[in-house]
Structures are given as C-alpha cells and as structure tokens.
C-alpha cells in the first residue's frame, strides 16, 4: 500500500510523519505547481471551488508517481467540502485510475474515534504505536508553526527579504526530513536563531490580519502568496487560521490547548449570528478581533464562489464601518491574474501606510494641545 493525501500548505510535513509512524509507505503529491493546477482544472467540474481542483491535480500526480491509496477528509455539510471526496473519486475512476480511497469522516470532536480511524489506516500497528505517531506528528506540526509565526514576524522587518525566505524554506525542509524529536527540536532552534540574527530596518511596520477560507489561507499557491507579498511590503501578516488551532478545535475538541474559538465566535455577533459552514463566522469574528487589537487592516481571502466567505463578505462592510478597520476581499480561481492581485494589494497597503503616517504625525501634537485646552 502506497499512501497519498492532498496538499495544504505545510500540512504535508506532519501528515507524512503521522502516516510513516503508522508504518505506511507514503508518496506525497509533488509540490503544487502550474502543472498540478492545469491537471486539476482540466478534470474537475468547471464551477467547483478551487480547493477541489487542486486536490484533483494532487491526486493525479501522486497516482502517476505510484500511489495507490488516497486518504481524504469528508464531512456532512453544509458546504461543498463534505462532498469533495465523492466527486473526486468518481472522476478518478472515470479516468480509469486504479486506487483505493479512504475517507476520514469528521469524527465529531471525539478523540477516541479519531484514534480508531487513524489506527485502522495502518496495517499492523498497535494502539500504542498509533498514539506515538500522532504525538510525533503533533510535535512536528507545532515546530512548523513556530517557524511560520517567526517568519511572519521577521519578513516585514528584515532588510534582506530573500535571505530570510531562504532560511525559512530550508528550516521547513529540515524539519520534514527529521526522524527524531530531538532533531526536529534542534533544526527548529537553528532556524529561529538564524532569522533573529538578520539585520532589521527601522521603518514602520503595518499589521494586517489575514482572514478567510481555511484552504486558501493555508495553501499559499491558491492565494498567489499574498502573505509573503505583503510581508515584502513591510506588513506583518497575522492569520486567522493556523493548522494546530484547527486540529485542536475540530479534531481534538479543544483538548490540547486553551482555545479562543468561543471568544472569536462571540466577536462575530451581532454582525453574523449563525454558523454558515466553512469558516464564515470565524472570518467575521477575527475581523472584529483584529480591529479591537488595533490592526491596521484586514484582508479576506477565499476561492471564487466560496459560499461561507460570500456571506461573511456581505457583513464585513458593516464591520469595517462600525469597528473602524479597513477591509479588502480577494477571491481566487485558476483565471486570477497575478498583476491584478498585486496591484490591489499594493494600493491597499499604500492606503494603510498613508493613514497610519497621518495618524502618527498628527495625533501626538493634537493630543498635547487638547490637554492644554482642557
């Protein structure tokens, strides 16, 4: 059995660790490339949302590289994702590929169910070994995220952006290849240290919240690397979704770390008072949260026609007005043009920079004056 799975940003690092720990032979799909997109678009329903198309590209490339088993997540609505695996399997079968698909249906936040599903994947593993695999994967996931968060912090601040990108990418590669916990630990620290040693400029750094649909946020190829692009324009980007939070909230029922999920949901009201599938309500909640934390702006991203994000976008105008935070929405599909995307981003950042400059240069004197007047 040669197992593969869909890509989602750096998630392949912990997923690979997990499957290997279950003594499975793993063939990850090649990194998402132009060819992946072309294959995906060619064989997917025309109006499906982008993640499905990228999944399809991943699966085809992985099967051609020798994989015979696909592990995919499922779900029970209300959004399209719950039906992805079915549609994908049918299309691949129609293309006459020979493979098996294992669908992990949402385990309803029950750790024991997840453990059972995970264990049943491995052929001859004990519960203890499965548990060890999960723990190691979780450890890797956290290491990856530590790098990501530091990278998000340093990219806008360092002088040499190419250099810090290289350090980050190398760090990820090393973590991916590490087989021992100790190695992961060491590689992480080496990488962090290198990032910290990079010379920084002292120009102002904007803070931008990145909210939206989970896949688009986690898989940079599907958002045309907007986070890196903004980082290079000296904007520090904080995401609404990190993989570990998602795993913690949705698969482990908030069991491992204290979660802000409930608080964020509260922030969404009164703008959006109901769950709308996907991460629509989180998008609204985090936008409010970023506004209250004095971020300079929020960028919402998602695949074109993404239903929960359209609902969220419909109320973001009100949020922006009432909470006083500039928001911009960007949707992506296979036809999006890079130039258009980057022009819009630059204009947005430019506007925020001017705004923050005006505030900082006038607010102090006016404030001082006011004091004297009073």
């Amino acid at each position: 059995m040669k197992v593969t799975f869909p890509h989602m940003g750096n998630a392949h690092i912990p997923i690979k660790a997990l499957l290997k720990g279950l003594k499975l032979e793993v063939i990850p799909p090649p990194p998402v490339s132009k060819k992946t997109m072309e294959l995906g678009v060619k064989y997917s329903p025309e109006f499906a949302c982008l993640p499905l198309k990228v999944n399809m590209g991943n699966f085809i490339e992985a099967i051609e590289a020798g994989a015979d088993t696909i592990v995919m997540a499922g779900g029970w609505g209300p959004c399209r994702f719950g039906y992805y695996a079915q549609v994908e399997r049918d299309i691949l079968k129609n293309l006459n590929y020979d493979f098996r698909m294992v669908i992990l249906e949402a385990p309803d936040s029950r750790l024991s169910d997840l453990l059972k599903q995970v264990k049943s994947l491995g052929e001859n593993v004990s519960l203890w070994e499965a548990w060890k695999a999960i723990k190691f994967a979780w450890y890797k996931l956290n290491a990856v995220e530590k790098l990501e968060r530091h990278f998000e912090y340093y990219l806008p601040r360092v002088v040499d952006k190419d250099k810090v990108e290289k350090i980050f990418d190398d760090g990820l590669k090393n973590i991916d290849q590490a087989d021992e916990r100790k190695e992961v630990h060491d590689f992480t620290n080496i990488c962090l240290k290198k990032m910290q040693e990079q010379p920084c400029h002292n120009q102002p750094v904007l803070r931008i919240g990145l909210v939206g649909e989970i896949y688009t946020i986690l898989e940079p190829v599907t958002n045309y690397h907007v986070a890196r692009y903004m980082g290079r324009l000296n904007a520090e980007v904080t995401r609404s979704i990190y993989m570990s939070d998602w795993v913690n909230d949705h698969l482990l029922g908030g069991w491992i770390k204290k979660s802000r999920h409930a608080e964020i949901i509260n922030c969404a009201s009164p703008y959006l008072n109901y769950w709308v599938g996907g991460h629509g309500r989180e998008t609204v909640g985090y936008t409010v949260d970023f506004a209250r934390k004095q971020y300079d702006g929020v960028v919402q991203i998602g695949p074109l026609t993404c239903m929960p994000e359209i609902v969220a976008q419909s109320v973001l105008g009100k949020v922006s007005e009432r909470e006083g935070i500039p928001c911009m929405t960007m949707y992506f599909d296979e036809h999006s043009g890079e130039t258009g995307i980057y022009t819009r981003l630059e204009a947005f950042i430019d506007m925020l920079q001017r705004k923050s400059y005006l505030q900082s240069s006038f607010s102090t004197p006016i404030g001082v004056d006011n004091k004297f007047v009073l």
Partner: protein
Amino acid sequence: MKRVGIPHSLFYYYYYPLWKTFFSDLGANVISSSESNRLTLDQGIKLAVDETCLPIKVYFGHVQELCQQHLDYIFIPRLVSVEPKSYICPKFMGVPDMIRAALDNLPPLIDITIDVSKSDRSLKRDIMRVGSLFTNDDNQIKRAYTHACQENRFCRLLAREGYTMAEAISLWEGEQVNNPASGDLNIGVLGHGYSLYDPYISMNLVERLRKMGCNVFLPEALDIGCIEREAATIPKRVFWTLGRKMVGSALYMDKRADIDGIIYLACFGCGPDSLIGEIIENKVKNKSFMMLTIDEHSGEGGLVTRLEAFCDMLRRRRMRGEGNLPAYG
C-alpha cells in the same frame, strides 16, 4: 392590524401558503412583494456583494421593495434545514444577517431559525415566540400553525398535478391558471424552485417549453418515494435537501420510458449546483441531458436557441426511431 411583509422570492416558492396562513390566522395583514422584475434585480445587484448568486441578489431586491411599504415586520427566516441531517445552503443560513448589513431602513425582522436537522424542538419554540408578537393565546398560535401546515400540503398536492409551484400558489390563492397544455415531447425540468419557478430568473423556462410543444415534468409532480429511493442509490447521501431531490428526480426520470430528455437549470456561482450538476451529468445514462447555467447577464435569445435546438434534436431522434439513446453515442 399588523402588517407583515413576505419577500416573493427564495423559499416563498415552497412555503408561502404556510407562512401566509400562519400570519393571517394570527390576525396579521400579509403583504408580499411583486413578482421579480427588472427593478427587483437592479436593486438587488446594487445591494448585494458582486459574488453572490442571482437568487440571493433578487431576494435583496424584494426586501428593498418591502421596505417602502410601511410594514410592522418583514419575515426573513433563517432556513438552516427543513429535514433531518440535511441543509439548504450556507447562504440561506446567513440571509438575515446579510440583509441587516445591507439595508438601513429595515422594519423589525422576524428572523425565525428553521433548523430541524437534529430535532424540531427549537423550531416549535421559535414558532411560539413569533406567534407571541401577535397574540397571547398559545392555543391560537398552535392552531394557526397546524392550519398553516395543512394549507401548505394542499398547495403541494396541486403541484403534483403538473403545475409549477408558482402556479400552484396562484391556484391556492384562488386565481385562474390555465391547465398545463400537452405536447408531443416529455421533458423533465430540474432546478432549485426559487430559480426555476421565478419567471424572471428562469426567463419563463417552463412556459417556453410548453409553448414549444413539451409536456414538462417537474420534481414536485413525481412520487416522493421514488425520488428518495433513487437518491439513495448513490454512495454518499447528498446532504443538500434540494440537491438530493434533483439527483433522485434525475435518476428516476432517467429510468422512465416516457421521458425524452432532461434539462437542469443551474445558477452561475451556485455552490451545490457545481457538484450536483456534475453528479447528474455523470449518472444520467439513457436520456439526452442539457445543463442551462444562468446569471444576471443571460439573455433570452441564447436560451431560446438552446431550447429549440434541444427539442429539435429530440424530435429528429424520435423520428429516426433511436429512442432514448444517450446524447453522444
């Protein structure tokens, strides 16, 4: 008398008799917006975000129209699920919030949440809450609700005779509706009721087909048991109520000897349609199948051409005696 507005859009086409009876029995004066038209759409386009699908845009237009009618309430339900373990669409779950964010001159909303995916307990509570806006008499509310459900069932019975839901509602209101004319081709027509039966959104699809000499078969006229049985043959249960009905109807029609072809009306940018359309296209093996995708820019000319070509093809095929062979060999 309190005035309650009901938008003539979305689930109006499935539940208007229920809602109207309920509010009337509680002594309210029910006002519905006019049938969708150019103005409704233009206003909807102005109010809704660009990426929204056509039916939701049209809905915004209807609510805007109602805002000018001096109402005490507008009824904008949050339809989460109308049967166990199924949903309508994420957008339906956010409609009241989307409306609130887009319109400033709104009268108070009655935004009852309809969610029976797990149980109908909260729905019952919500009905009592809404009823208490009009009366203190709990029994009157319960009676009104029971009566309302009866009226809705009656209207559905009318639709089983081959009328569209829009026609069935007119009949239910006591208006005159012509008998669906009969023709020489039998065509199954599928789509979400709020696009298919809204003459403006669907550009009169059903009426046009009838004029071209077709007997139109709609999902509401089929036996529910047969639809569900066919829908259950695909590996994973479709968790969208309308989607499951479409898949079941298509498979059922695919097997029926008397049906010549199937047309599916989809909305551009619709999430469920993007996958359901694919599934149906894949599974319909014995009949000619045509998918029509519409948006606010679709023109009538293109529609007519495609419908005529489809009907011609079916007639030619019948003359050659090919019967019900698949469209492409």
